[in-house]
């Protein structure tokens, strides 16, 4: 499988390691139900059949964490962007 790294170009998946679901967000530690939210954040993951956003780490390349949009049924990769860039844009 090949992943289009925004910095390095299309690279073999051997250069990456996967962490999984990129849609989870670290909760507010001071929130009213921080304990419950952190439990979900640490342990609960969606595993959809089809399009999924996943965190992949280009550890043997540019060492950037990427958000990769991948079809979990066909392994087709629709795109990848820098995790850092994506979050920064939203803020």
């Amino acid at each position, binding site marked *: 499988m090949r992943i289009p790294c925004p910095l390095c170009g299309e690279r073999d998946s051997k250069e990456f390691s996967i962490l999984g679901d990129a849609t989870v967000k670290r909760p507010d530690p001071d929130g009213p139900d921080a304990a419950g939210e952190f439990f979900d*954040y640490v342990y609960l993951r969606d595993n959809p059949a089809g399009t999924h956003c996943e965190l992949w780490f280009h550890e043997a390349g540019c060492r950037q964490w990427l958000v990769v949009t991948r079809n979990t049924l066909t392994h*087709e990769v629709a795109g990848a962007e820098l995790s850092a860039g994506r979050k920064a844009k939203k803020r």
Partner: protein
Amino acid sequence: MSGRLERGGLIDRSKPLGFSFDSRRHQGYHGDTLASALLANGVRLVGRSFKYHRPRGFLSAGPEEPNGLFEIGEGAHREPNTRGTVQELYDGLVASSQNRWPSLRFDVLSFNDWLAPFLSAGFYYKTFMWPASFWEKVYEPFIRRAAGLGALSGEPDPDAYDHGYGFCDILVVGAGPAGLMAALAAGRAGARVIVADEDFLPGGRLNGEALEVDGRPGHEWAGEVAAELASMPNVRVMKRTAVFGAYDSGDWGLYERLTDHLGQKPEGIARGRLWHVNARRTIIACGSIERPIAFAGNDVPGVMMAGAVRTYLNRFAVAPGKRAVVFTNNEDGWRTARDLLDAGQEVAAVVDTRKGDRVPAGMEAVAGETRVAFGVRITGVLGRKSVRGVEILDGDGHSSVFAADLLAVSGGWNPTVHLTSHKGAKPVWREDIAAFVASKDRPGDQIIAGTANGAFSTAQALGEGLSAAEQALSDLGRKAPRLRVPKAENTATAIEAFWHVGEARGRAFIDFQNDVTAKDVKLAHAEGYRAVEHLKRYTTLGMATDQGKTANVTGLAVMAELTGRTIAETGTTVFRPPTTPVPIGAFAGRAHGRHQQPTRLTASHDWATERGAVFVEAGNWLRAQWFAQPGETDWRQSCDREAAAVRRSVGVCDVSTLGKIDIQGPDAATLLDRVYTNTFSTLAVGKARYGLMLREDGMMFDDGTASRLGETHFLMTTTTANAVGVMRHLEHATQVIWPDLDVQMISATEQWAQFAIAGPKSREVVARLVDEDVSNEAFPYMGVAEVTVCGVAGRLFRLSFSGELGFEVAVPARHGDALIRAIMEVGAQFEITPYGTEALNVLRIEKGHVTGAELNGQTTAADLGFARMVSAKKDCIGKVMAGREGLVDEDRPRLAGFVAADGQARLWAGSHFIEEDAPADLAHSIGHMTSVCYSPHLGRYIGLGLVRGGAARAGDTVRMVHPLKGIDIAVEIAHPVFLDPQGERLRG
């Protein structure tokens, strides 16, 4: 050579080759396979079948061969289950038959054949049911001995394998007429092309047929195209290379055989190369496989696929028999009769299952020279180790027998669609050609051409090859060259599907390699195993090393007949990689033994080797474990001496392997506050602080010091084992969790050589190394400074892991070797002693410092006595989850020290703690010992461990139980810091 024809064939008669089979000497020619050479020598019995030990000969002439498997080579190089039809002949080749005892002609276990009624499908489950205790000791060993293929040498694989990586615009799988045509068009268009074929001679069926392309022999056309392709710089022609698997994003697995065809294996060349090829488009032109017909005795040596007979005749100039009968359900079988007659062989009869008495166009001469029968079937084969005759039954119910020693069978052709289904697309049935073809749901980068696509005539194959290339080029935005499809035969196979002879009296084999008969399929059906996946597993149809290449379709056609469903409704099983056997060693490549992981050496490695160091692996590093001195015979002697020397005077240890991460930026301090439990933003420049890191689930992750080199500049250290993990953790934190932090980091582990100098005399040594003032006033405990070390810009840290006065001196790694030698030189007057990781461990246990044994992924900061290091004023990774009910339970085992109650007994890490009056079982375990050592300083064994109640129970006695060693002794709980609890030594 009884079978070799006088003329013809693509062999080099000027290069005779000697070889042996079961110790008998034979001769063949360059260009032969082992199979063609054996047949040329009149050897037809080449193996025994898997279950019934029936005599078997070659069925095919290609990689689909189910019967002709051999052990090739001797000793550790012996390779079992090698297909004789693929193995190229070389001078001195040594081949042995398999699965027979004592010999191939007389095989004792062939009595299994008479037991066949008891060995039908599912016989394991039915026959070996009781008594249950017999399974492991009696039944399984018996079955394993009786059934099987070749034997492994039992030695480690002595061969080397390489890995290769390739990229191309267009990968062409197969170099037959379709593949060559496609590659020619793609190559001339300038595309980057890889053409791979499992054979050593490009051409595919053109080499096995007496067919013309553009008015000359087909193999000549193939040779010319292959030569043109080889001359193109943008084309790589890979012979002896099987494309064995289709993977994601246009990735393909290829295995290239490099030396299997050579008698003298060249030095330094790998046996094979595993290729990972990424192709933008792939043209699958890997041909088709002729399928047998199931009839009684269809496995007797001398029964052979009709196409294989033509290959032996035309390519290898070998007549596989002297008097043949041809059995066919399509036009193709007639070609075999024609080629046999053209080669001067005798053809007793052509038996065509089709009705209508229609002699195929162009076969009138064949009909004139031999007996022809339509609407007729074969009901039996005479002979056991070799065909002697064939029994046929005509439409009127009359039986007759033809004397013959060769029976050529054509049941039609199965397109080789395996690769198209690796990604999950199931092949679909085409009634018009009675065959499965690739599904339209296959990945879009796969284009199918030629007989692999059910285009069975040569003209069609050439045409499809060209149009496949045109499509691929157009997909890639390239212009296709103007090319003409060469002229070639274009006859339809006119197949009328015919799968098995229902009147069969004897056993009619479907899967030759796994000995599955038509009767087994009927039995499976009768017992309710009707789905194809059930049929496969119950009967083992298609589960042998050939993966049922000649068997699957026939098996499910018979099942379809029995269930009254169509073949399309019955469907097919899924194919998975590899399509052809690939040595396991090829997947490992060079990455085995010492080469599985890189070996990292510290700057002081050569020096340590000179000093007699024994090394231990830690995080891929080799670290000195102890330095054996003359006269020391046991590691404990060395370790005790080294640890005592540190406490008495001074020692030096390479600590370069600890992870070092250089962190800079306005938010560097904020980041450290968020990843460490304690606060670093308050740390003064020029100071270091010990920090704890948690995982987000609240467990301890790592520990180490971080030094503030500047307002916005920190140097973090990690444990050796976690250096990679901590770096990844920080990058996740800054890129995923808090991308708004303005901070950058880089690993500096390998850039610095760092030595710990510890002991009462350490300041004296350091003062002689660095220009700066290192007095306690100028450079107090936990101080950090940039200094000049022997004239080199370096760093000095006042840190201690041993509990003694201690320093760590760091210089750029290239100066590490010089520095350790300088340290030894200036330290000589203080008898400075190098110490390894064993003494380091003793020193830290005496001081109660935790390491990996305690940071085991199941302990919290509170468990290890660090509750007060978790800042209440701020958040950090893991803080919220560390507050979970179960993790703050007072009853959790916590860190404590341990000594034997009798003062002298040896302690054992891994032992459980049990209360004095409780039974010694797991339910009553209240913790375990994590680290132990003999303390030369205290003169006794000491330990660290986790026990319910922790150090608060100091003075209590519990039992240390180690059931594996039969140890159950009383130990006293102690404070974990055995040495200088006030820390006066290290602050002095």
